[in-house]
C-alpha cells in the first residue's frame, strides 16, 4: 500500500517536471514561505497606509471591511491501539471529524490623525456530517464536555491602532500574523488571536524592530482568552506505576502542584509574554532574531537566516537556517526547561512556478527538561522547517528529514488556477529503550491542492486571495509499531497506555474572501 503512494507521487512529479522544463516562462510567481503553514486572514499587516479621514463620521464611512465565508471539514482516522498486555494490541478505532461553516467579519475605520479602530467577529457552526461528541478533538468547532461539537462566536479582534510610514502601535485584541512563534496557525476554521500591545518600527532602512507585550491569547476554537502558560498547553501528564506512585510527569524539577488543579492543565496565575525582535535584510539575504519572554515560565530565543542565490535567470536557490533555545525563568511554573532545536533548508525555485526543497530539523533530547525537551510552540504556527500537516517536529529528540515539491500548474501551462504540493518527511524519534520519553518513529507524506476561482497562476498553497478558492489537504502518517513494550516496562516500571497506528488526515477548505 505504502509503495503505491510513493509510486504515484514519483510518477506525478515526473510528469509535471517533464512538462515544466518544456517551456520556460517568466511570469512572476509568489515566493514560497520556508516555514509555518497557515492560511492568511488579515490584509491589515501588509496593507498600504490608508488616506486619513477628516472627521469621525468619515472615518467610519470610509473604513474597510474584511470577511471570510469558509466551509471547512477534517477527517482523521486515528487508530489508537490500547495495550492490554505486552503481546496483544487491541485496536480501538477512533475517527475524529468536524464539518463546519464559519469565517469572520471585521471592520476597521479609516485613520483619523493616523489613528484607527477595528473589530472582528469569528464564528464556526456545525454544518453537514456527523459532528458528534465522540468525534471531537480536532478543534474545528467548540468541544463542550457534555454534548456534541457546537458553534462558537467570539470577538477575536477589537483594537486601537496608530500607524504612519515608520511606526505602528496597536493595542487590544488582534491578529498577529508575522511574529513567527506568535502567529495565526489558521488551519482550522478560525485563527489564534492575541491580546496585548505591539509596536513596529521601520525607521531605519532595511531594519524592522518589533516589540510586543501579550497578555492573553485565544485558541482556534475558543471563546475565551487565556494567559500564555495555559495557552502553551502545559500539562502535568502524570504516569503512575502498579503501586499507585507517580513516577513520571511531563514536568521535571520543582514546580507548584497547586498550579495544576483539576485535569492537569495549568490553572495558576495568568502570565504574559514580552517579545522583542529585529529583522534585517538586504536584496538577497536576511537575518532575524527573536526573543519571547513568558514571565515565570520560559524564555525562547529564535534565530533565522536566509540567503538567496540567483543561479540563473530561470533558477533561484535559497538556503536557510534556524535555531531556537528555550530555558525556564523566574518561578519556573512548568519546572525545568532546557531545550533547543535547529534546522537547515535548501530550496530551489523556478520562474515558471516550480519549487523543490529539502530540510533537516533536530530537537534536543534532555530528560531533565519538560517532556524531555519538547518545545513549546502553541502560541502560533510551529516554525520548524519540517512542521508538516500533522507532525510538527517539535517533540523531544526528533530528527527529521523532509523533502517536497510545489507546482504552479497555471504558470506551467498545465492546468490554470491550480497549485499542488507533495511532501515527505521521516521523523526519527528517540526510541531507545532506556529513554523515558521514547516514542515511535514515523513518516508523513502529504499532498496539497489549491484551486482559485479568481487567479490563474502566481499563488501558493496558503496565499491570501480575494474571491473563491478551494484547498484540499491529505496526509498519511505511518508509525513504526514494533516497539518492545515488554522491555520498556521492565526498565521503567510502567506501561505505555496507548500507541498510534497509521492514519490518514484529510482536510478541505472552501473559502470566499472579501
Amino acid at each position, binding site marked *: 500500500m505504502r509503495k503505491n503512494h510513493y509510486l504515484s507521487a514519483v510518477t506525478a512529479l515526473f510528469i509535471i517536471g517533464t512538462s515544466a522544463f518544456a517551456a520556460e516562462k517568466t511570469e512572476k510567481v509568489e515566493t514560497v514561505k520556508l516555514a509555518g503553514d497557515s492560511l492568511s486572514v488579515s490584509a491589515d499587516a501588509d496593507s498600504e497606509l490608508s488616506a486619513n479621514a477628516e472627521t469621525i*463620521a468619515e472615518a*467610519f*464611512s470610509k*473604513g474597510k*471591511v474584511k*470577511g471570510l465565508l469558509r*466551509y471547512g471539514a477534517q477527517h482523521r482516522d486515528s487508530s489508537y491501539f490500547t495495550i492490554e498486555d505486552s503481546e496483544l494490541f487491541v485496536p480501538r478505532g477512533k475517527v475524529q471529524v468536524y464539518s463546519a*461553516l464559519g469565517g469572520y*467579519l*471585521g*471592520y476597521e475605520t479609516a485613520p483619523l490623525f493616523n489613528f484607527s479602530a477595528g*473589530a472582528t*467577529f469569528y*464564528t464556526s*457552526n*456545525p*454544518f*453537514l456530517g456527523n459532528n458528534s461528541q465522540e468525534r471531537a478533538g480536532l478543534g474545528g468547532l467548540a468541544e463542550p464536555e457534555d454534548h456534541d461539537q*457546537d*458553534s462558537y*462566536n*467570539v*470577538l477575536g479582534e477589537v483594537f486601537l491602532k496608530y500607524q504612519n510610514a515608520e511606526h505602528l502601535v496597536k493595542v487590544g485584541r488582534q491578529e498577529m500574523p508575522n511574529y513567527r512563534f506568535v502567529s495565526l496557525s489558521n488551519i482550522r476554521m478560525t485563527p489564534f488571536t492575541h491580546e496585548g500591545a505591539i509596536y513596529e518600527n521601520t525607521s531605519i532602512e532595511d531594519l524592522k524592530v518589533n516589540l510586543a507585550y501579550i497578555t492573553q491569547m485565544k485558541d482556534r476554537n475558543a*471563546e475565551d482568552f487565556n494567559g500564555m502558560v495555559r495557552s502553551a498547553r502545559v500539562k502535568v501528564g502524570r504516569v503512575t506505576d502498579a503501586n499507585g506512585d507517580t513516577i513520571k510527569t511531563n514536568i521535571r524539577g520543582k514546580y507548584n502542584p497547586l498550579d495544576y488543579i483539576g485535569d492537569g492543565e495549568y490553572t495558576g496565575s495568568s502570565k504574559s509574554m514580552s517579545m522583542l525582535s529585529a529583522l534585517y535584510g538586504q536584496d538577497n539575504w536576511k537575518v532575524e532574531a527573536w526573543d519571547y519572554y513568558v514571565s515565570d515560565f520560559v524564555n525562547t530565543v529564535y534565530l533565522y537566516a536566509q540567503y538567496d542565490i540567483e543561479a540563473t535567470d530561470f533558477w533561484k536557490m535559497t538556503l536557510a537556517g534556524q535555531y531556537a533555545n528555550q530555558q525556564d525563568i523566574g518561578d519556573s511554573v512548568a519546572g525545568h526547561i532546557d531545550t533547543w532545536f535547529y534546522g537547515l533548508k535548501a530550496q530551489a525555485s523556478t520562474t515558471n512556478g516550480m519549487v523543490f526543497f529539502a530540510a533537516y530539523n533536530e530537537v534536543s533530547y534532555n530528560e531533565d527538561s519538560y517532556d524531555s525537551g519538547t518545545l513549546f510552540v502553541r502560541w502560533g504556527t510551529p516554525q520548524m522547517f519540517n512542521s508538516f500537516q500533522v507532525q510538527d517536529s517539535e517533540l523531544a529528540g526528533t530528527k527529521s528529514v523532509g523533502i517536497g515539491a510545489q507546482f504552479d500548474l497555471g504558470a506551467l501551462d498545465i492546468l490554470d488556477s491550480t497549485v499542488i504540493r507533495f511532501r515527505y518527511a521521516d521523523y526519527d524519534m528517540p526510541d531507545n529503550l532506556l529513554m523515558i520519553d521514547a516514542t515511535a518513529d514515523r513518516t508523513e507524506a502529504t499532498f496539497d491542492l489549491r484551486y482559485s*476561482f*479568481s487567479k490563474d497562476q502566481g499563488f501558493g498553497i496558503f496565499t491570501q486571495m480575494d*474571491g*473563491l478558492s478551494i484547498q484540499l489537504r491529505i496526509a498519511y502518517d505511518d508509525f513504526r509499531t514494533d516497539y518492545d513494550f515488554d522491555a520498556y516496562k521492565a526498565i521503567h516500571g510502567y506501561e505505555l497506555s496507548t500507541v498510534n497506528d497509521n492514519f490518514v488526515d484529510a482536510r478541505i477548505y472552501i473559502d*470566499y474572501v*472579501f
Partner: protein
Amino acid sequence: MRLHPLCALFFSPFFLMAESGITEAFAQGSVHGQIKLFSYDIDKKSAEDAYANALGGFLKYSTDTNNSFYASVRFHTSQPVGSNKNKEDTALFNNDKNAESLTVNSEAYIGWNGKNRILKVGNLMLNTPMMNDDRTRIVPWSYQGFAYTGKATRDTKVQLYHISQIRSHTSDEYKKESASGKIGSGITMLGFNYTGVNSLDLISYYYYAPDLYSTFIAQADYKLVLDSENLLCASVQYFNSGNGGKYAERKNKNGGDDIDLVAVKIGYTAEDWMITLNYSQNFGISGIVKGYGGLSHVFTTSMVANGRGNYKPETWMLKSSYDFPLTKWGQSELAFTFTNTRTKDSRGDDFDAYYMHWRHRYKTDTSLFVRYENLEYKNEKSDVNYLRIIASYQF
C-alpha cells in the same frame, strides 16, 4: 446550533451565480455597525440590588440586496466594563456562562427577493408581536428558521414564518426553547396586514406552537388626520392563547395557554408633542411579558412597568412626549409615562410606576438616552428604581 436544513441554501448563491456575479454582489455589499455603551442600575432595597456597565454593539454585512439572492450576517457583542453587582440581573451578558461577556451570531441568512415578496432562511431578527428581537439591551433575541413576506392582494400583506430554534438575549446558543418554555417541533406564524380601508390598518397573527401554546392576535389602528401637524389615533388589540401542549405552563408570566387580553389606545399627536391613553385588561391567568421571545407588543408597555403580567392585571397608562426645537447641537426629546396596574387575582402584583426619559440625538447616528422608572408596589414587594444610560453611535 445545527444548520443541516440550511445547507443547500448557504451555498446556493455560489451555485446560482457565476463567479463574476458573486464578486459583484460582494463588491456592492454594505456594512453597518453600532457601538453602544450601556450603564444599568437596578436599585432595590435588598440583596437584589444590581448594576453593570457594558460596551458592545453590532457589525453587519450584507451582499448587494438588490440581487435576487443575497446574504447577510450580523454579530452582536456585549462586554462587561468596570465594576458591577449581580450583573446577571441586568440581562446584558451571557447568563448561561455566569454573566460573562456575550458574543452572538444574531443574523446569518440567505435572502430571496421576488416581486413583492421576500424569503429569508437562517438566523433572523424578527419584529412580530409575540416573537421579536427586543432591542432594549445591546444584544437582541434572534430566531432560526424561515420568514416569508409577500403581497397576497393589492392591499393585503401575508407573513408566513416557521421558527425551529430561538436564542435568548442573554445566551449565545440557539435552543428549542422560547421565553415561555420549550417549543418542541417549533412555532409557525401566519400574519395578515390589510390596508384596503382608508385610515385603517387591520393586523392579525396566529402563532401555532403545538408543544407549547398557540396564540391569536387581532389589532386595528385608526388614524384621523386633522391637518398637516395634527393627528388623532385610536387602536384596539386582542390576544388570546390556548391549545396548551406538553410544555405549556398556565401561570407563566411570559406566556401560557390562558392569555385573554384586550388593549385600547387613543391618542393625539401634534407637531412636537404627543399624548396617548392606553388601557389593557388580561382576563386570563397567563402573562404575556415576553411571549415566545423578545417583549410582547402590548399597548401598555413602558420601560419595565407593563400590563402584560400574569394573574389578570388591569392597567392604565398615560404616555406623553415632547420634542425640543432642533439646534446646532441636535434635538432632544423628553417623555413621561404614568402606569397604574391592579390585578384581579390575589397572586398578582399591584403597582404604580413613573417613567421618564431624555433622549438627545446629536446627529442621526449619535445619541444619548437616559431612562428612569420607579415602580411602587402595593404589596410586600420592595419598590424598585431603574436607571439606564445608553450612548450609541451608528455607522
